[in-house]
């Protein structure tokens, strides 16, 4: 698959970059050929984002050089990157929701005559771009806010293509997509490379690299551990070793048999959210992990949020340890011992600028106060105990949550509920944005929490994760529970078959 005959497009050597004394990049080299899909693999915090921001002109390297088509260049700002022919699609898509597709695509370089924007020309070119990306059905007039995450990505890509680009950098584009949408994305990527455009593809899903990548650069702790590895010739175990510095096997912890006398901790009966899902009934016993498997849009997250009271159910009841909860009240759910780790950790879970300990004690803050007066020492002590127990890094309760990696941010949320003393834990995408090495830790932690008597409900868009983690699997499609069965009795293929059948019915 290596396109040896392709010319070297970009050659970065010995890049270094530090922020306020923290070395984000220590020694990174990267070589990209025209028309290849070059994957950058690395754990969170390895320096991937800093690297691409350096190539995109957001950051300037402290040391090292960048050759573009053989000539040394400096990229002082994003505009200069675009002029060279480098476009970047960030993870947080930078499209403007309130503008139309066409307006987004030509934002900053509007097609204009004498200061008046030329709508018809913009529409024509938008149509062409959309067709080229295989999404001719998206109208130039559609407001971007009404599009799905996948389609917003397409708009972002079209915007990149509206410039004359040679290299497009995609930062974890698959993170917000389901498997069908990922296939679509890959088709678009192939279309781009066929046209001679190089794609830098950042991900931590190894199976995607197998499907789409030509060559790989692995980054660990700000260094390129290996660059220009051919995908086809590099075994996965080698990639994991380079990425984590150790061998990873046995990802999922063994299931622990549930005691016969384990009480039902969570009971969901006939739960309905009009227009989204209906008639959801199941129960979870102490020590049990129940997984909801289904595609994006099947209603999985909505079911979890409704159980939690973050959305008000239109029918049905939720009971914790036999006591029915007030509908639509998070406060009541938390008081009853329920905790949610939300899908979007950053926007729904954490107060990012606040230190770890504040985030850990957020749900049980009154317990760290006497008559309303906070005891910050007790808070830090409790946070420190959790930091130790969960091996949270960095082990400093005063560090702002924003500086932590995805896996450690997830641990903050788990710590929050451990401090609160939950009996029912709802985990929505517990390993999204968490790298391979840290995932194993999170899985072990979830299993341990179950073994300690918690009832746990897990939602994940990775079916493998649900099957590996859960004792019982509920297959969800179109807002209905299709089946409930032991995780050992079904495989990924079986779940997908059920989903397809259910969706067709």
């Amino acid at each position: 698959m290596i396109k040896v005959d392709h010319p070297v497009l970009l050659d970065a050597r010995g890049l270094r970059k530090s922020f306020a004394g923290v070395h984000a990049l220590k020694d990174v080299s990267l070589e990209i050929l025209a028309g290849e899909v070059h994957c950058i693999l690395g754990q969170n915090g390895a320096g991937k984002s800093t690297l691409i921001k350096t190539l995109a002109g957001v950051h300037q390297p402290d040391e090292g050089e960048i050759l573009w088509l053989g000539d040394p260049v400096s990229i002082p700002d994003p505009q200069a990157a675009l002029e060279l022919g480098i476009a970047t699609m960030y993870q947080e898509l930078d499209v403007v929701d309130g503008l139309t597709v066409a307006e987004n695509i030509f934002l900053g370089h509007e097609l204009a005559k004498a200061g008046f924007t030329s709508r018809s020309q913009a529409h024509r070119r938008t149509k062409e771009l959309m067709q080229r990306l295989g999404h001719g059905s998206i109208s130039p007039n559609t407001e971007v806010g009404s599009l799905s995450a996948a389609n917003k990505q397409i708009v972002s890509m079209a915007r990149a293509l509206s410039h004359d680009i040679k290299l497009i950098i995609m930062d974890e584009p698959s993170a917000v997509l389901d498997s069908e949408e990922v296939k679509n994305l890959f088709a678009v990527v192939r279309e781009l490379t066929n046209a001679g455009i190089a794609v830098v593809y950042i991900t931590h899903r190894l199976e995607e690299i197998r499907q789409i990548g030509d060559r790989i650069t692995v980054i660990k702790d700000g260094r390129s551990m290996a660059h220009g590895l051919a995908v086809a010739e590099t075994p996965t175990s080698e990639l994991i070793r380079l990425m984590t510095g150790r061998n990873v096997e046995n990802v999922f912890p063994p299931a622990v048999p549930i005691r016969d006398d384990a009480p039902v901790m969570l009971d969901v009966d006939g739960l309905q959210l009009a227009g989204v899902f209906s008639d959801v009934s199941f129960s979870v016993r102490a020590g049990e992990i129940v997984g909801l498997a289904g595609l994006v849009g099947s209603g999985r997250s909505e079911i979890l949020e409704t159980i939690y009271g973050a959305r008000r159910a239109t029918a049905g009841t939720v009971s914790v340890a036999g006591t029915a909860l007030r509908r639509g009240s998070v406060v009541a759910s938390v008081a009853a011992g329920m905790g949610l780790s939300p899908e979007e950790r950053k926007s729904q879970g954490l107060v990012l600028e606040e230190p770890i300990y504040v985030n850990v004690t957020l749900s049980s803050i009154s317990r760290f106060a006497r008559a309303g007066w906070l005891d910050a020492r007790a808070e830090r002590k409790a946070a420190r105990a959790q930091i130790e127990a969960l091996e949270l890094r960095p082990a400093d309760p005063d560090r702002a949550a924003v500086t932590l990696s995805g896996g450690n941010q997830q641990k903050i949320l788990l710590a929050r509920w451990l401090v609160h003393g939950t009996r029912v834990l709802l985990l929505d995408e517990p390993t999204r944005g968490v790298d391979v090495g840290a995932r194993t830790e999170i899985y072990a932690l979830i299993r341990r929490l179950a073994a300690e008597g918690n009832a746990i409900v897990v939602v994940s868009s990775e079916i493998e994760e649900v099957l590996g983690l859960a004792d019982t699997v509920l297959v969800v499609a179109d807002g209905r529970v299709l089946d409930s069965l032991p995780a050992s009795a079904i495989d990924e293929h079986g779940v997908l078959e059920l989903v397809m059948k259910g969706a067709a019915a």
Partner: protein
Amino acid sequence: MSEQTTPGTDIATPPGPETTTTSVAEIPQQSSLRRLLGGPVGRNAGLVVALLLIVVVGAITAGDTFFQVSNMLTILRQASIIGVISVGMTLVITAGGIDLSVGSVMGLASIAATLAVTQDLAGSSHWIVMVVVALAIGLAAGLVNGVVISYGKVVAFMATLAMLVAARGLAEILAERRTLVVESRGFIEFMNADFLGVDILIWIFALVAAAGWLILNRTTFGRRTVAIGGNREAARLAGIDVKRHTMWLYAIAGLCAGIAAVMILGRTTAGTSTHGTLYELDAIAAVVVGGTLLVGGRGTVTGTVFGVLIFATLTNVFVQNNLSSSVQAVAKGVIIVVAVLLQQRFSKPTGARE
């Protein structure tokens, strides 16, 4: 890593011991200065410098009169009323809200406390009745704001703008556009007395500021306020009753307006419906100049106190030099812009990667 020009495989050698120096030792000086200026110490240090600058200008242009103790007390007295309002505003803004109604509510409370009915009751019992009425009106108006914003889901800007207009109107109706003179000598004497050589008004400001600081920094209420301002959805999903909390925040802002009404009654010895006009803007300016983020999530009562003092001292320097209030307004505008510019430069999180 020698043959990088030829495409192909190239595995880096493992890092040697000489490259594993700790990053802490290498913090460049410029960045530690930046960190100092970016931290809470730095922000207040910047405010101290700004205040000192204005004091120096005052000393140069009007040295003899400016530095008299009586003039210093005048500055503090003038800062005190807007200061009390600003403390309440700090809490609201920290939670990501805004309260435009405080000036009007202050006017309304001053009228309610000086109506014939209230003063008759006060005359037959004690002047404390007037105080209670003013505080109750402020609290009630704040609660109405809070309920409309939290449970009616009206944007804070609009809800409090409506209250601004309505409270002023109600004050005019109740006052019949007249000035209502305070009859209680006891009240006026108390409010204009001093304690340890410092005016009661200044003491009230100091007490309110101390209470605001304690609430924001040392109580669960303050912690929740910061959390709501920092990430409203995360606070809600963590089990905080965001609606009820928000309601109480506006109630506190209203209560502060009530306290300010009592203070202005003491100073002017009369209630009018125009008391507190445009105070909301002065308060917002002081809060923002003090370093509280207008988007919420970060608030400082200490900074607000500095912000209030900066504007009050500035006013005083201008008055001492017989400069017009128009010139003063221009200077105020410049200070606000400069303060916000500095805030944006230095309030970016340091050391954030990825």
